[in-house]
């Protein structure tokens, strides 16, 4: 039986779908079979980030309505043979499915796939309830901003109430701003949210380039810092002990060096 992991955040636009796409790809690269479920009915995006939008024929809705078999709706990735996407319907809203139906789909997929990753829609309404219904564990994505952290806290509370253990990804960290005390650090965020840290992803312009092309960062030949961070997260999901990236190294200034000199004494 595969693991069912929901990727969620509360607030929109913090990088849920980017994380889902990249973690799915990274796990598939490491020879695991992965099924990605887009649970964002009406506002689907995961197909775009994976570059699979032209190959969507059926969606989860047709499977549930009995108009096609589950296998027919799964879009197989051509780059990584172990990765499939179950697309969401674009012409319906979040009330089109029930938590029970989501469970049915996710459980069916765990029979064949090592990892079932569910990309949760923003918000805490029906779409969220659907997305977490089947999950054994959750990844909460946030950015070091007050609104994103507040929403993440709300989501963590709801996950706790449903007895789903959650782990944290802090996305879009800008080390230079943290060092200038103009952004919360990863530690600040983690201390406030008080759940285990799964990963740190630095702000990386290449994410936009990757999205433009429909080729998640972790796939590219020359891996950027963001890509490395996401690959590391995938390895931690597998249970490997991988050190967190030291994002400060690149911003070694004269001031910080003198400061370190005094601290070491």
């Amino acid at each position: 039986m595969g693991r069912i992991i929901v990727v969620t955040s509360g607030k929109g636009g913090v990088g849920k779908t980017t994380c889902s796409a990249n973690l799915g790809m990274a796990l598939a690269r490491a020879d695991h079979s992965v099924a990605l479920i887009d649970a964002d009915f009406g506002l689907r995006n995961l197909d775009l980030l994976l570059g699979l939008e032209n190959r969507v024929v059926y969606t989860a809705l047709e499977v549930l309505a009995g108009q096609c078999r589950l296998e027919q709706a799964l879009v197989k990735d051509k780059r990584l043979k172990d990765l499939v996407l179950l697309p969401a319907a674009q012409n319906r809203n979040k009330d089109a499915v029930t938590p029970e139906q989501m469970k049915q789909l996710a459980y069916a997929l765990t029979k064949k796939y090592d990892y079932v990753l569910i990309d949760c829609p923003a918000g805490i309404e029906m779409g969220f309830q659907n997305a977490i219904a089947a999950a054994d564990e959750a990844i909460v994505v946030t950015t070091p901003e007050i609104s994103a952290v507040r929403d993440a806290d709300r989501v963590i509370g709801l996950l706790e109430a449903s007895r789903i253990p959650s782990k944290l990804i802090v996305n879009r960290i800008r080390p230079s701003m943290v060092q200038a005390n103009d952004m919360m650090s990863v530690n600040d965020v983690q201390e406030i949210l008080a759940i285990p840290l799964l990963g740190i992803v630095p702000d990386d312009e290449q994410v936009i380039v990757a999205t433009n092309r429909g080729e998640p960062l972790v796939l590219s030949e020359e891996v950027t810092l963001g890509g490395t961070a996401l690959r590391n997260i995938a390895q931690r999901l597998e249970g490997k002990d991988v050190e967190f990236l030291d994002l400060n190294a690149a911003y070694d200034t004269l001031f910080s060096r003198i400061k370190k000199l005094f601290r070491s004494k």
Partner: protein
Amino acid sequence: MFNDILERLFLGSDIDTTSREDVKGRLKLVLAHDRSNLSPEMLEAMRRDILEVVSRYVELDSEGLQVALESDQRATALIANLPIRRIKAQPQP
């Protein structure tokens, strides 16, 4: 000590708090309220009731009264700081 001096030398003697400290403070406060699910009215009513009960036994220093929600490690606590001016001889009904 040295770090403080260095920070002043290099970054200027900034007495104002940094925006990072500001945001942490604001977040902690707002989360304590979010997590407790208590409305400001209920918190205020509770504060009044607590003060009323305590005041039956002791005379409180109204200047230093503090009743606030705090949140640590996902547990919320009501922290009340009620400085006592003097103990009353007989509890008043």
